[in-house]
C-alpha cells in the first residue's frame, strides 16, 4: 500500500540521531510492548505479514507522530480487536469483561526462549525461479491497496538480479490470507541514477529483495 511506512527516498524527515549501543529501551512501557507483541504471536490470530500490514495501516498522521513501540502497541491492539480477543469496552474499562478465545495457546515463560531461538523461517518448497543471477529485470508498477514489500522508490526501475533465494512466503498474499503462496525471491540491484535521476549519488548502489511477481524481464 502507498502508506506512511514507504519512506525510502522521501525528503524532509530531518537528521538521524545516533544513540549508544547500551541503550536498549527508553521507557519501561516499551519493554512490555515488545514482550506483549511477541507473546501474542503464538495465539496465531495473525502472521508476520499481517502484523506489518496492521502497522502500516495506521493513519499517516499517527504513524509519523508515534515512536516505533507506540506503532507496535497500536497495531497489536487493532489486531487483537480484529481477532475478537478484546473489545473497545474492555480497553475503556482497563479490564477483561469476557473470556479469551485462545487461552490454550498462551505462551509460557518456559517455552518463550525456545520460541525466540527457533524463529520462523520463510523459505518454502515452491515454483522454480524464472530469473538467474545476472538477468536484467524491471520492477512492475505494482501499487496494491493491500500489503506489499516493493518500495515505491524502486517501482518501474531496471536492475540486475544478484542473488536467487529460492521460494519464500509471498507477503502480498499472506498478509491477507492464511495461504503462504510461496514465490521465488531475488536480490535485485539498482544504480542510484536509475532510482533518483540526475542528482543521484554516482557512487551509490541500492539492493532490495523482490518476489517474482514484482518483476518482468528487461531487454539488455
Amino acid at each position, binding site marked *: 500500500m502507498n502508506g506512511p511506512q514507504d519512506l525510502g527516498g522521501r525528503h524532509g524527515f530531518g537528521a538521524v540521531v*545516533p544513540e549508544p549501543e547500551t541503550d536498549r529501551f527508553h521507557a519501561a512501557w516499551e519493554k512490555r*510492548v515488545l*514482550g506483549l507483541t511477541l507473546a501474542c504471536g503464538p495465539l496465531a490470530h495473525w502472521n508476520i505479514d499481517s502484523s506489518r500490514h496492521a502497522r502500516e495501516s495506521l493513519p499517516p498522521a499517527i504513524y509519523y507522530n508515534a515512536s516505533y513501540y507506540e506503532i507496535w502497541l497500536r497495531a497489536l491492539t487493532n489486531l487483537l480487536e480484529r481477532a475478537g480477543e478484546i473489545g473497545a469496552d474492555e480497553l475503556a474499562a482497563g479490564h477483561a469483561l469476557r473470556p479469551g478465545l485462545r487461552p490454550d495457546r498462551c505462551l509460557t515463560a518456559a517455552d518463550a526462549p525456545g520460541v525466540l531461538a527457533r524463529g520462523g523461517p520463510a523459505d518454502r518448497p515452491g515454483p522454480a525461479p524464472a530469473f538467474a543471477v545476472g538477468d536484467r529485470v524491471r520492477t512492475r508498477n505494482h501499487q496494491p491497496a493491500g500489503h506489499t514489500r516493493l518500495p515505491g522508490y524502486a517501482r518501474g526501475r531496471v536492475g540486475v538480479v544478484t542473488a536467487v533465494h529460492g521460494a519464500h512466503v509471498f507477503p502480498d498474499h499472506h498478509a491477507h490470507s492464511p495461504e503462504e503462496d510461496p514465490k521465488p525471491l531475488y536480490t535485485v540491484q539498482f544504480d542510484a541514477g536509475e532510482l533518483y535521476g540526475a542528482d543521484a*549519488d554516482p557512487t551509490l548502489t541500492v539492493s532490495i529483495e523482490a518476489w517474482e511477481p514484482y518483476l518482468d524481464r528487461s531487454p539488455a
Partner: protein
Amino acid sequence: MHDHPHDHAHGHDHGHDHDNEMDEMTARARALETILVEKGLVDPAAVDAIIETYEHQVGPRNGASVVARAWTDPDFADWLRRDATAAISSMGFTGRQGEHMVAVFNTPDQHNMVVCTLCSCYPWPVLGLPPTWYKAPAYRSRAVREPRAVLAEFGVTLPEGTRIHVWDSTAEVRYLVIPERPAGSDGMDAEALAALVTRDSMIGCGQPARPGVAA
C-alpha cells in the same frame, strides 16, 4: 496540553507534552497487558522472559564475535560468504529475525550499509533489538538516497571514490556488515578484536574502534 483542573495526585510536575505522552503510553500498555493476562492469553512471566532475552542476552556483542572470528579465521570468513545462516548458527546465534542471514564484507573500494525502508527489519540474533534511529523516518528515508550525508551524522567520512552499497531489507533476508579489520590490530586475539567492533559498524553506520582507542 489538557486544561481541565487536576484533582488526582501527581508524582511530579507535568511541565511539558513529552511527560504526558509517556504517562499515557504507560497506562495504555498496562491496560492492554492487564486485559490479556485476565483472559489467560498472556503469561506476564513469558513477557518478562522475552524482555530478559533481548535486554541482557541477545545483543550486538554476538555480532561482534562473528566479525572477530571472520577477521581471524579465513575458513570461517569463506563460510560466512557462502552461507552466513549456517556459519552464524554454528556459533549459537539463531532464531527470530535471523532465519536467513547474508554477510556483506566492506573493502577499501566498497562500503555496505543496511536499512529497512518499509519497517524495522534487523538481524536480532546477532545485533539484538534495533536502535531507535534505525526505526525512525529520518534514517529509513535517507539511507537509500544520501548515505554519505547520513554517515556524516555518525561522524563517518568515506573517501570520495569509495562505492556505497545500501541493502534495503524488504524480505526476511537479514544483513550483517563485516567491517574492515582496523589497522594496528595485528596479533590481537578474537576476544580483543571483538571489543573493537561497534554495533553501528555492523549496520554500516560506523567503523570499528582503533586499537588503543575506546569503542
